[in-house]
């Protein structure tokens, strides 16, 4: 019987338990296949078909090959290739939020981990700066709209102080709208980055700092010659995951501008573009845009994957069943 064989040799024991490995991972894979993998292929499949609604009539689905992709990259009547415009918007707003996010996070991580500075109240500071990361983006964005619109309190403060005219409108200029979106993204993410970079710095072997100091390095040299190079993997990981997050930018600009990307679609992001086609049920175009975004995230995700799996390449002697 099974039980008897099990007692005889270790090798057979491993064979007997193998089926449990499959049983334990089945729920994950069944759900993943049904709710993610099949929809992913369906999305790609749709990108080769013409399917949309023209008024009340349903057009398609008709196979059109790569026509949807061609349409995505064809300039519209005003001569702009819309996907490139929205990609540029997304990129500009991401950079505007991410640069201060990483600079400040790096500074704070150094402050918090410095023995010389010995910052008190770290728990409080970390709690406050991380807080916006958990706020519902849609609600945060709605809050910004209520505060910054022409009837809102920010306008009132600035007018009272004579800094702006009553006729000023935060939602009429690309710099202010993009600025608000970048500010929200910055506030939502710098605390998170600070905490991750801090953990990275604290993970560095303390003796390296000590020997560098003994060898006569000053704190600037220690930072650039010891801390920064050793922190690089985590920094790059943070940066790329932040990029992947940036491509997904949707809730904040969608709610802030009511899906319009004011002014003149200059704050409209890639996912807002996709969302528009999904709502209009133009599945062909939505499919093509989804595939393009999938390719971009795939490239970035590939880098993250290589970094994470590098951890597992180190030979590990561990007994497995």
């Amino acid at each position, binding site marked *: 019987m099974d039980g008897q064989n099990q007692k005889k040799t270790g090798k057979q024991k491993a064979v007997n338990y*193998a089926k449990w*490995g499959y*049983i*334990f*991972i089945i729920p*994950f894979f069944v*759900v*993943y296949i049904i*709710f*993610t993998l099949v*929809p992913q292929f369906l*999305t790609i499949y*749709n990108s080769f078909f013409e399917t949309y609604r023209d008024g009340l009539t349903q057009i398609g689905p008709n196979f059109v090959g790569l026509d949807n992709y061609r349409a995505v990259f064809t300039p519209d009547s005003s001569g702009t290739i819309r996907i490139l415009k929205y990609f540029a918007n997304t990129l500009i707003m991401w950079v505007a939020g991410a640069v201060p996010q990483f600079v400040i996070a790096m500074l*704070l991580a150094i*402050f918090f981990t410095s023995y010389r*500075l010995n*910052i008190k109240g770290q728990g409080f500071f970390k709690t*406050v700066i*991380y*807080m916006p990361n*958990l*706020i*519902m983006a*849609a*609600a*945060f964005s*709605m*809050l910004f709209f*209520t*505060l910054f619109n022409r009837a809102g*309190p920010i306008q009132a*403060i600035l007018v009272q102080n004579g800094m702006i005219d009553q006729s000023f409108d935060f939602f009429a200029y690309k710099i202010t709208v993009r600025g608000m979106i970048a500010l929200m993204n910055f*506030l939502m993410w710098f605390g998170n980055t600070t*905490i*991750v970079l801090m*953990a990275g710095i604290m*993970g560095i072997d303390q003796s390296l700092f000590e020997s560098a100091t003994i060898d006569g390095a000053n704190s600037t040299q220690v930072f650039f010659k010891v801390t920064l190079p050793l922190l690089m993997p*985590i920094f790059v*990981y*943070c940066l790329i995951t932040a990029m*992947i997050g940036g491509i997904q930018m949707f*809730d904040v600009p969608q*709610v802030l501008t009511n899906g319009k990307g004011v002014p003149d679609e200059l704050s409209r992001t890639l996912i807002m573009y*996709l969302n528009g086609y*999904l*709502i209009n049920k133009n599945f062909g175009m*939505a499919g093509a845009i*989804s595939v393009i*975004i*999938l390719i971009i995230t795939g490239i970035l995700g*590939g880098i*993250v994957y290589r*970094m*994470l*799996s590098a*951890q597992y390449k180190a030979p590990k002697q*561990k*007994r*497995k*069943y």
Partner: protein
Amino acid sequence: MNKSEKGRLKLMILRVIVYIILIFLCVLCLFFFYLMVINASRSNAQLSSGFTLIPKGHFIDNLVNAWTDASINIPRGMLNSLIIALVSAVLTTYFSALTAYGIHVYDFKGKTAVFTFIMAVMMIPAQVSALGFVQMMNKMHLNNNFLPLIVPSIAAPVVFFYMKQYMESVLPLEIIDAARVDGSGEFYTFNKIVLPIMKPAIAVQMIFSFVSSWNNYFIPALLLDKAEMKTVPIMIAQLRSADYSKFDMGKVYMFILLAILPVMIVYIILSKSIIRGVTAGSVKG
């Protein structure tokens, strides 16, 4: 002044600058939410009369008005969001731990491939398969149903990865051996011995998945259009697209406050363990 005194003075100035920067950032983080709370305590007339930093006495009025609003049923939305977020949090942590355990403890053919696959798809966002997902759910008549928002949480690669890493650091395989010797079945071992050991990881991931589900807007907005099925983020977006000039602004601030309140309460109670949980699961240096 000698050299060490100079150094001490320099350090003190540096410290003051650092505290000023920290306080400034904290004020920046709290300022907008402070305005929200203040404005949620003012009547519509007070709000249109200008700006103040002092709370007024209409908090309860606004709360009652928002809670009983006819067009935006916020109590229903909060209940819907709560159901989806709670069930998702339980499912995602249990099944991620189960999957991680299956790969961590057992040796089977294709195990490396399975692990590689999960790692490879980890960074793919839900938006790029949303089209096929929404199409499928519509065909299965599962739009205006919570199942498509709950069941997919069983397969969460990021949570899986976190659990896997946690197991590697805290779960000695000898315990499982010992349980087997005592005649414990495989599922019994997982549920009664492994899960209690995993408690800290499960708690942290439950909080994170609760929060991300509570805040999720993109997919629910594509699936739920019946008023009584809507979740909080959809209602907030609805507030934005409504005719703004007719709104009682005190009520609007109260809606926003209610939308973020449950997460804030959880955060205030558990901020320490939440912040500790942020770093786990990322690249080690």
